[in-house]
């Protein structure tokens, strides 16, 4: 380190300014810590390296939760949104999912602006090549240009940059996403310090000049008429301004691809990394689902001030000449000009079971990790971890209790617990079916679930909190009113008849009426004369809470059971080999995982229900011993 020079001291240094890095840097700075965020290139701050959209199932839930906790993603996508759709509206409210098309460039510039204007936050273009670690505690970072920065904590959010390698058919080279350079030295140095790394793979389709497409041959998919913002801080959102377009592959497409399959990096054997099953390349789809005659693809605009469009569904690791050939077999793409070729990218990441639920590394104090570096995939998954890593790094430095969201409180909890407790063998994507308590963890009530917590941590300001409390009070007031407002048969029966609902003989409350599937809150306004003027989102809560109270109640009861084991904390210096009655496998697993609670312990593979009982008995024994 003799050649290095001292460049200053920070509380928290964030390595990488993608979706995880931005949230990490912002939350740390907002909690009053002196924070520095590095990016290899400042033009890549909050870069959307793949699809130009935010949200969809599970992911929308994460964005709403990030927003409720005081994160930035929801606010930023609202600014950059050019089309908005609510997915799954034909299904129950738990799986309604907002999805927005983003102007990529705007998303980047808006986020960069927020970072620039954030108090306590410095931004620096530079490549971190090493960490300074002493006594298993991270104390600084070193850049490629020789600068040494002292720090109390580091958050690694390296995305796909870490030892990134790009593949286009037979051609491959070291590189990061979208033409940026990879981060090579850092990976080797992390290994030297003793972190174990592994290879994951992902890919992105080509970007095409939209002027060369024939949209008449494709099916239009416009945005919703009514647009709803992501952020709870926004009351409304501008209208959808662009459409997406739907088209399909055909026999010709398939034969071009299959004729050249041996030239694909994936099937040629060049790629060693594990790719996600839910994001297969087109050649992978053809091989695995050989009898499918056509595959659907979406054309998505990349922004308002560019002609580039994204070809969703067509990522590939085939070489450029084959790409051009098969893209042009597709209806509407006959004359398509590719402006950025599709590629596969391989990168280094850790196995997330090496992390605590706070996202701190188990073997290195004050080293926090977030995003693709942890084996996840997706902007929203990254942002959620970034936010939590930023919060927990800050809390640790301030010597406060860690902040953990459990599986019954949010998708953020499901995401992190899945990664840390169960691990993952492929880039991890959130899904609503991963959540046990889906009916409670809805995107519409994310603020009701988490704003309070965001306020306690200090990421929600007083003004926003007051607004939230007002909303909560209004919901309660309205609920009380609905419970106690009776309507007599004479008044209600004509209304019921109009909505094909069976008539009543005795007076009924509004609440009882709302339980009927055919009666909506808004329809009820016809006969509900004393209804106060209320925000549409309050009406929505009333309706959902009443209509689905049976199902919600059932899950609430399950949550209560779940919470009991979650509350039984386990000390991190417990030596499980000393606990008799535990099977050896359980002893070993528990010693490596060091779960925070009995609940977390129960989810580790290899720990049986009987082991959990033994743990409980042991906890009780220790407690009694202490009491004497």
């Amino acid at each position, binding site marked *: 380190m003799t050649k290095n020079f001292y460049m200053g001291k920070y509380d928290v240094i964030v390595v990488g300014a993608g979706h995880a890095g931005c949230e990490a840097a912002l939350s740390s700075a907002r909690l009053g810590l002196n924070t520095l965020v590095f990016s290899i290139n400042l033009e890549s701050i909050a870069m959307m390296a793949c699809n130009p959209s935010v949200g969809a199932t599970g992911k929308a839930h994460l964005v709403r939760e990030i927003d409720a906790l005081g994160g930035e993603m929801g606010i930023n996508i609202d600014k950059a949104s050019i089309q908005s759709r609510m997915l799954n509206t034909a299904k129950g409210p738990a*799986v309604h999912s907002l999805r927005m098309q983003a102007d990529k460039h705007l998303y980047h510039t808006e986020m960069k602006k927020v970072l620039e204007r954030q108090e306590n936050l410095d931004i620096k273009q530079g490549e971190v090549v090493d960490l300074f670690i002493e006594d298993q505690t991270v104390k600084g970072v070193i850049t490629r240009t020789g600068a040494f920065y002292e720090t109390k904590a580091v958050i690694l959010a390296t995305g796909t940059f870490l030892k990134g390698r790009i593949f286009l058919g037979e051609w491959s080279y070291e590189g990061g996403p979208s033409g940026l350079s990879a981060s090579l030295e850092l990976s080797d140095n992390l290994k030297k310090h003793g972190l174990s790394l592994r290879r994951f793979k992902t890919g992105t389709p080509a970007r095409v000049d939209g002027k060369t497409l024939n949209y008449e041959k494709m099916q239009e998919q416009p945005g919703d008429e009514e647009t709803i913002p992501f952020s709870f801080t926004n009351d409304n959102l501008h209208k959808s301004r662009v459409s997406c377009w739907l088209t399909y592959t055909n026999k010709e497409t398939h034969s071009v691809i299959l004729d050249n399959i041996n030239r694909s990096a994936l099937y040629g054997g060049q790629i060693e990394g594990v790719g996600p099953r*839910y994001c297969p390349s087109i050649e992978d789809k053809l091989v695995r689902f050989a009898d499918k005659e056509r595959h659907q693809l979406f054309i998505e605009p990349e922004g308002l001030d560019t002609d580039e469009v994204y070809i969703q569904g067509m990522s590939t690791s085939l070489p450029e000449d084959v790409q051009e050939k098969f893209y042009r077999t597709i209806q509407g793409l006959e004359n398509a000009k590719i402006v950025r070729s599709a590629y596969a990218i391989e990168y280094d990441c850790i196995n997330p079971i090496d992390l605590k639920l706070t996202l701190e590394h188990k073997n290195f104090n004050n080293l926090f990790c977030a995003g693709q570096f942890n084996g996840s995939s997706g902007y929203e998954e990254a942002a959620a971890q970034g936010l939590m890593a930023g919060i927990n790094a800050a809390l640790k430095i301030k010597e406060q209790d860690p902040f953990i969201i459990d599986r019954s409180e949010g998708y953020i909890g499901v995401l992190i617990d899945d990664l840390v407790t169960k691990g993952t063998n492929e880039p991890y994507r959130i*899904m609503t079916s991963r959540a046990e308590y889906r009916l409670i963890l809805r995107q519409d009530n994310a603020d009701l679930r988490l704003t309070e917590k965001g306020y306690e941590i200090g990421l929600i300001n007083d003004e926003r909190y007051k607004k939230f409390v007002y909303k909560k009070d209004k919901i309660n007031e309205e609920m009380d009113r609905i419970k106690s407002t009776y309507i007599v048969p004479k008044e209600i029966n004509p209304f019921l008849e109009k909505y094909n609902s069976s008539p009543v003989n005795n007076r009924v409350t509004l609440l009882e009426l709302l339980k009927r599937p055919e009666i909506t809150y808004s329809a009820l306004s016809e006969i509900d004369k004393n209804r106060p003027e209320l925000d549409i989102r309050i009406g929505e809560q009333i309706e959902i809470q009443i209509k689905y109270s049976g199902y919600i109640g059932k899950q609430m009861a399950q949550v209560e059971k779940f919470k009991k084991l979650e509350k039984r904390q386990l000390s991190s210096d417990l030596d499980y080999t000393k606990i008799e009655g535990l*099977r050896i496998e359980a002893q070993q697993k528990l010693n490596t995982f060091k779960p925070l609670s009995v609940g977390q312990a129960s989810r580790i593979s290899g720990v049986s229900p009987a082991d959990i009982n033994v743990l409980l008995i042991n906890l009780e*024994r220790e407690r009694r011993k202490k009491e004497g």
Partner: protein
Amino acid sequence: MEDTIVAVATAPGEAGIGIIRISGEKSLSIINDIFVSKSKKKLSQIDDRRLIYGHIVEKETIIDEVLVAYMKAPHTYTKEDVVEINCHGGMISIRRILELLLKSGAQLAEKGEFTKRAFLNGRIDLSQAEAVIDLISSKTDKGFDVAINQLEGNLSETIQKIREKLLEIIAHLTVTIEYPDEDIEEITYDNLSMQLMAIINETQQLINTAETGKIIREGLRTVIIGKPNVGKSSLLNALLKESRAIVTEVPGTTRDLIEEMIHINGIPLKIIDTAGIRETCDLVEKIGVEKTKESFNIADVIIFILDASQMLTNDDYQIMDLLQEKKAIILFNKMDLPLKADINVVTKLLPNKKIVKASVKKGHGIRELEDTLSEMVYTGEIKQENSLLITNVRHKNLLEKAKSFLEDSMDMIERKEALDFIEIDLKNAWETLGEIIGESITEDIIDEVFSRFCLGK
């Protein structure tokens, strides 16, 4: 709130009386659901530590005559409310009461759970903690695994098949929920309802067989013995036909043993055929007294067949001698022919043995033999292991639970509720069925989704 748990405190058949113990907050309300005292009053707090006479009833049908004791927390073994039911010791009575209690909301206690609660609630002191741990962890090694091993291929396979069908539906639902924009075949309520109906029926069939005890595990080891041509194979065939539940035919595990699993009045019998009954060989002559003794030793019950149309022979006396200390039924076959055998001699030689007169060929006396057999089991003359009873009840309970989840989803399908609600209860059913065979991993669903559907960018 902790679950209210229930367990059989005595081994069934051991004595005239069986004790079923309930512990937990809901003990009192659960017992009041199924118990009617002589005075027709509900049990209440004031009945603390009194022995109340009455009946266990299910929908006004009396199940058993019982004595019930309610013990108020905290002065009980578990420091929770405890109820003890003293019923008749037979298997049927205990089993039906247990099933009723489970239906009323009690949970089957895990091994050592009463003691665990006693400890956690501070009833047992520290020095006994080791014993509690031993009790619980012994389960890890044996208990559950054994229970699974006990499942003969058939049940486990059937459940596996039902789960596969369910998984297919769940995966399809999951994919339409998670990937609303993808090009996936639409799910119709009609189709869903049809598929589900088939699954509900299959589950119901399993419950039916569970009820009559056709779920095969360790059967009662039964040896049929007698001279050549006395009618052993006819009897076996008659029993097999009656039971209509031949589940496995395992080639002998040791020597030339052939085992057949059959069911008689809800009791699984494992018929052990030494050197093959169908070969109509003379056991004593061919394999000798020692081997015959051996086959007697592994038997829980022996059916000894005599030819009523023949005089008793030396062999017969030899076997009768060996039968003295055994649980056995003497079957006089060929009663349709002129009687030559001296039945009185047999009753004198074997005074405590049940005697059945039959003509297997004509189908007479089979029913009587079956009833005699089951009576011996239910009255406790032949003992069946406690664990068997419990696994039976546990499986049935889980099957019922799975079925109720399936029916809930069916209701939702009929009401055309949103697909994601339906998916939740189907998943619950799938997981519950998995509990029976010891499999329940959510990741399976996600694997199924990605292997069956082509998704993503």
